[in-house]
């Protein structure tokens, strides 16, 4: 059974189409693997009944021929995606018991293609966190382990990354507002891509910061990312920021030929305290791209340093507005009220009980920066700085750069609980290399590059031009081939 779970999406697709395996076998193998992965706490809602029904339907489609790529493939869905009739909590107590009466566009597209939902996945509450520790379900655990400590799988898509790295499902959906796909992928030795803003519909995904949020796949390799992203992407009239452009065949873009492409290496992404192994991997990756025929160019993105502070104005501001809807009236939980409590007390108690500490902190910071007298000084200034960050990228792209190579994170995964005593700002710094990409709306992919001195995975990030995911995936594919990373965690949890 577990041999099946070693398959990649592309391999499983081909085996399904040739009739070597069935979707039911694959789904049973996934459900069994999930069952034995409880210590990872990656899966938080059981959807095995739905999965079995979807697998039977997928087998029928496969037998009839003409099945889409994703048909019959068992995937996990992040708890941020509204799934029809299936508990969707965004890992928050305030949405305890919430069963959407509709399906998010992205999950609907995946199911229409025949994908099998084997469970809902753990995450940081409302996707606010970088370690999966703000979840109401408790943290997910990284399958990678090198000593007694349990490590974070990263966040916010920590459950997605842990589940895929542990080979309990073949791929998973994630969302990325400041690095929430790429950072967990880097921490768990797998691949994750955040597409261009507007490529995937946000409809039915619980909103955190609407101008930054994008869905994307968390997969075992670049080819799988290409296959799954194509299934997730596309225009949707229900999301006014989704863009009406054709979705190319991303897998067909994987030629492995990047001769003549220009790769930028930004000097601002070399930060103090970066481990030597990361420096080495970054320069090795650069050499590999050069050896593959790319032109390497040193570039400058001068406003990089201001991306995190700008993000910590814009994202909380949007969150404070988006999360105003959790008021104890239409969905989720309402706090127990005392005699004489009016509607204001209902709001205040419901939100005090239902939101966790980090979510409250961000809502209140957002409220503050949007409040009268501070709007210009904080919110408008941050939006101006955001325009400059985007302009930095536009300038290097107009100078002929096709993609930018950086580390994905400033270090490998840290121990769960290690950041708790520190200032929240320390945790924010883990997104230093990923957050710029959200602010500029660009596509970014993290691929596993190697191990640090302790034996933990490190990732490299490639950032592409807007709407050029195919080109970006091809560069990542070329680098992946050269890096030849194939280390896997020991299955200590079984």
């Amino acid at each position, binding site marked *: 059974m577990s041999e099946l779970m070693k398959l990649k999406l592309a391999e499983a697709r081909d085996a399904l189409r040739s009739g070597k395996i069935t979707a039911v076998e694959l789904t049973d193998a996934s459900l069994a693997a999930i069952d034995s992965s409880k210590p990872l706490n990656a899966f938080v809602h059981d959807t095995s009944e739905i999965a079995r029904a979807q697998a039977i339907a997928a087998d029928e489609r496969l037998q009839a021929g003409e099945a889409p790529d994703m048909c019959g493939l068992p995937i996990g869905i992040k708890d941020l995606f509204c799934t029809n009739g299936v508990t969707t909590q965004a890992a928050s107590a305030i949405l305890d018991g919430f069963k959407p009466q509709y399906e998010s566009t992205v999950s609907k597209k995946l199911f229409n293609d025949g994908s099998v939902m084997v469970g809902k996945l753990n995450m940081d509450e409302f996707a606010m966190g970088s370690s999966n520790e703000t979840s109401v379900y408790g943290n997910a655990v990284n399958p990678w382990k090198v000593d007694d400590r349990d490590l974070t799988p990263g966040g916010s898509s920590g459950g997605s990354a842990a589940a895929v790295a542990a080979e309990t499902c073949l791929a998973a959906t994630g969302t990325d507002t400041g690095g929430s796909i790429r950072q967990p992928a880097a921490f768990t030795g797998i691949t994750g891509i955040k597409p261009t803003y507007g490529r995937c519909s946000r409809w039915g995904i619980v909103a955190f910061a609407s101008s930054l949020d994008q869905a994307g796949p968390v997969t075992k390799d670049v080819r799988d990312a290409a296959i799954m992203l194509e299934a997730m992407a596309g225009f949707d009239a229900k999301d006014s*920021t989704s863009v009406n452009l054709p979705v190319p065949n991303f897998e067909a873009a994987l030629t492995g030929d990047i001769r003549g492409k220009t790769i930028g290496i930004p000097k601002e992404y070399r930060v103090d305290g970066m481990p030597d192994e990361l420096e080495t991997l970054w320069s090795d990756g650069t050499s590999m791209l050069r050896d593959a025929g790319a032109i390497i160019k040193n570039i400058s993105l001068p406003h990089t340093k201001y991306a995190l502070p700008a993000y910590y*104005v814009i994202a909380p501001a949007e969150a404070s507005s988006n999360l105003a809807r959790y008021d104890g009236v*239409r969905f989720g939980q309402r706090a127990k009220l005392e005699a004489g409590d009016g*509607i204001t007390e209902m709001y*205040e108690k419901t939100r005090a009980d239902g939101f966790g500490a980090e979510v409250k902190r961000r809502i209140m910071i957002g*409220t503050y920066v949007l409040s009268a007298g501070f709007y210009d000084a904080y919110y408008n200034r941050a939006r101006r*700085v955001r325009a400059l960050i985007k302009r930095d990228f536009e300038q290097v792209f107009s100078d002929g750069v096709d993609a930018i190579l950086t580390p994905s994170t400033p270090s490998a995964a840290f121990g769960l609980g290690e950041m708790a005593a520190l200032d929240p700002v320390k945790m924010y710094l883990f997104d230093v290399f990923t957050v710029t990409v959200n602010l500029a709306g660009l596509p970014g992919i993290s691929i596993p590059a190697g191990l640090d001195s302790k034996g933990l995975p490190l990732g490299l990030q490639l950032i592409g031009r807007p709407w050029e995911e195919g080109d970006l995936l091809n560069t990542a594919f070329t680098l992946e081939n050269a890096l030849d990373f194939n280390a896997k965690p020991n299955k200590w949890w079984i």
Partner: protein
Amino acid sequence: MSIDTKTAARVAKLARIKVDEADLPALAQEFTNILGFIEQLNEVDVEGIEPMTSVTPQRLFRREDVVNDGNQQDAVLRNAPDAREGFFAVPMVVE
């Protein structure tokens, strides 16, 4: 900028999140730390730069102004903590 407990209480009120009096000093300190981090933005020369409203250079498209959904009262009320007679129920708002 240092945030005092009075400001912290005002922000909590605006955000409709109940914060106990005893927790206000710690909250004010957290705000101070985070705003201190944010204040790096003051170093940037933003003269003449328009605040970004949309990261993609497109106007939001408009849908046809037609009814395309509706008649879903049950589905809309299904998740309400308190729904009665086809309405959301809340504590009394007017005397």
